[in-house]
């Protein structure tokens, strides 16, 4: 199914929810809408579903204009943040409800319900009511019902946000497999860059009602076209350092000079972007150094994010594994100049690190 948004915008009274934007999600694949709260993800999804009518522009499905066609006349499955199920129906009846609407014979319904429940590991709860299940299990029921609908377009609005992180991890992996196995066009909204990367597929980065960039997820991550995209698509946030164009490269304000090939169009004032993962405590050949003092070590479970006060400002370094740092202790960070991003005065990308070993 080919969904196309053409210059759709949405204004409500005096406030702009969405600036006019065009997006054609790749059919049969996952498109992640990535952005902070209030970026416009939900507004855009509501236009896709037909829950809202755009103020400007058109919505096309397989080339046919469906702008203004209400959601019940479209074939769309939706999953929300909140776990929405029919409270008085058993899990089995919840999952069966879209199948019954289609008028399938009883036996076929039972088989499909059981298959879906098995895939989402809720087959032992089929006779229970949703209220008797945990949050994670309730959301699995909602997901199973959406999948049962087998709609050509499936919209998921931060479906895992209300679950704790281990459940989120498990369910995200299962969803990735289910999406890959099906042929629906999936649109999935999230605030978490890590979730977009784990789901893969394609990503549309949104910020303050604007669609900033759309492309294969890893490509958007590695080659963000602007500071705004880089900021939205990094966790911890990309370190942004003030710099100036000089002979043979870039001079960091209050820090070392980096040998970087700048394109002709480079402005004098620049911003250098350094991913937290590009900062290391072990030196390698060709590195420059950033000496500083530890402000805090944040530990995510697999990584340690060290916040360091340096001459170029406060930076965050991402170190693999769990490491203990005394607050205030001295530390030297190392950086290969080939791994920096350079943005011009207006925030547009000039230089991105070369990518080695990126999977195709």
């Amino acid at each position: 199914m080919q969904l196309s948004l053409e210059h759709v915008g949405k204004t409500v009274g005096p406030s702009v929810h969405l600036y006019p934007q065009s997006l054609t999600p790749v059919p049969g694949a996952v498109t992640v809408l990535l952005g902070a709260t209030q970026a416009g993800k939900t507004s855009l999804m509501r236009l896709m579903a037909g829950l809202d009518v755009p103020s400007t522009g058109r919505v096309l499905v397989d080339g046919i204009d469906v702008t203004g066609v209400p959601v019940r006349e479209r074939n769309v499955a939706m999953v929300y943040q909140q776990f929405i199920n029919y409270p008085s129906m058993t899990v089995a009846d919840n999952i069966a409800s879209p199948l019954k609407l289609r008028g399938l014979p009883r036996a076929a319904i039972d088989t499909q319900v059981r298959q879906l429940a098995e895939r989402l590991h809720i087959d032992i709860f089929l006779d229970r009511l949703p209220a008797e299940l945990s949050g994670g299990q309730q959301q699995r029921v909602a997901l199973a019902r959406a999948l049962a609908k087998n709609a050509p377009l499936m919209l998921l609005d931060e479906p895992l946000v209300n679950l704790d992180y281990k459940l989120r991890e498990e369910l995200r992996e299962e969803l990735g497999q289910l999406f890959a196995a099906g042929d629906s066009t999936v649109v999935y909204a999230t605030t978490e860059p890590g979730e977009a990367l784990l789901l893969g597929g394609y990503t549309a980065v949104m910020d303050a009602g604007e669609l900033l960039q759309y492309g294969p997820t890893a490509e958007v991550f590695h080659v963000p076209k602007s500071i705004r995209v880089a900021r939205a698509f990094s966790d911890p946030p990309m370190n942004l350092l003030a710099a100036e164009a000089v002979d043979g490269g870039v001079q960091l304000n209050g820090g070392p000079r980096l040998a970087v090939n700048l394109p002709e169009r480079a402005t004098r004032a620049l911003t250098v972007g350094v991913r937290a993962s590009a900062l290391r405590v072990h030196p390698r050949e060709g590195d420059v150094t950033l000496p500083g003092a530890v402000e805090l070590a944040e530990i995510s479970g697999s990584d340690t994010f060290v916040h360091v006060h340096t001459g170029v400002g406060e930076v965050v370094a991402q170190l693999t594994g769990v490491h203990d740092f005394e607050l205030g202790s001295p530390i030297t960070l190392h950086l290969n100049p080939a791994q920096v991003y350079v943005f011009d005065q207006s925030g547009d990308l000039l230089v991105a690190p070369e990518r080695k070993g990126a999977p195709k």
Partner: protein
Amino acid sequence: MSRIDLDLAHSYKPNPQEDGDYALLPLKMSFEDGGAYALLGPSGCGKTTMLNIMSGLLVPSHGSVKFDGQDMTRATPQQRNIAQVFQFPVIYDTMTVAENLAFPLKNRKVPAHQIQARVGQIAEMLEMSHQLDMRAAGLSADQKQKISLGRGLVRPDVSAVLFDEPLTVIDPHLKWQLRRKLKQIHHELKLTLIYVTHDQVEALTFADQVVVMTRGKVVQMGTPEALFERPAHTFVGHFIGSPGMNFLPANVAEGALSVGGLGLSADRELPAGEIKLGIRPEYLRLVPVGAIGALPATVRQVQDIGTYLLVTCDVAGQTLKARLAPDATPPAVGDRVGLQVLGEHTCYYKNEELMA
């Protein structure tokens, strides 16, 4: 400030018979004076029950709670001299920030000049000095919760300060600032702080010692580094880290280790019988197929997670994940590779508990 000793169990049922009847299985543990502790586990693991027993909101069905050796099992929160901070702000809207912070001290008839000095100190630590004269009612939820934190920390003579998921209402980008504040404050004030959360980042960042719980049981109390490097229980290996530890069933007979029918030589002595190997994705190494000591595996998925590559492999009917540096040359899906599962970081489990 006090050392807190727990030697207890708790059941909400009148006649507990089996393990499942207990909210807290029998446990014996101590919280040292001046330490920063976190109680970490999924919902329903018993961490809030434990906190309520320490604060005096709940009397354990079995055993005792001691503060500095003195039995406090049935003492009220006031008698225990405990300060508490909850998920949601508990403050007086009609008072100013300064009055809110001063309230716990005024209540205990602390002299006015001491109150002023302490309120000033706490406000400065929380970066609220410029808001002292503002009415609490006009502040955002974040700011109100900061006042709650300040009220919890303002009394210098408390036995302990207990936090129950205190950052729930805080916006994500402010969370790390407050985590840093709490850590700094712990350094400066040397209060005993006990922090309940289901979030590994909060627990591992805040605490010197983390108590990991599951199903009413304390499975490990240790430093963040220990929980990562040497999880005492398979649950800890699974729960800490994203993705968590890989586990691989293995067998030891007559001192020889075999995994999926392949003999491997371990660098330490192992107990006989069915065991599990635990290897973190960070320590699982990909080597050419057929390399000595490597398990043959098939690559199922390769994901570019931006800051690293995540390779999922099938080996002897199990799924293992390996995390590679972003500049590594990744294998292709379907490739046959070798997996180096033994090394100094490998953990060995028997009946889910760390053996070697």
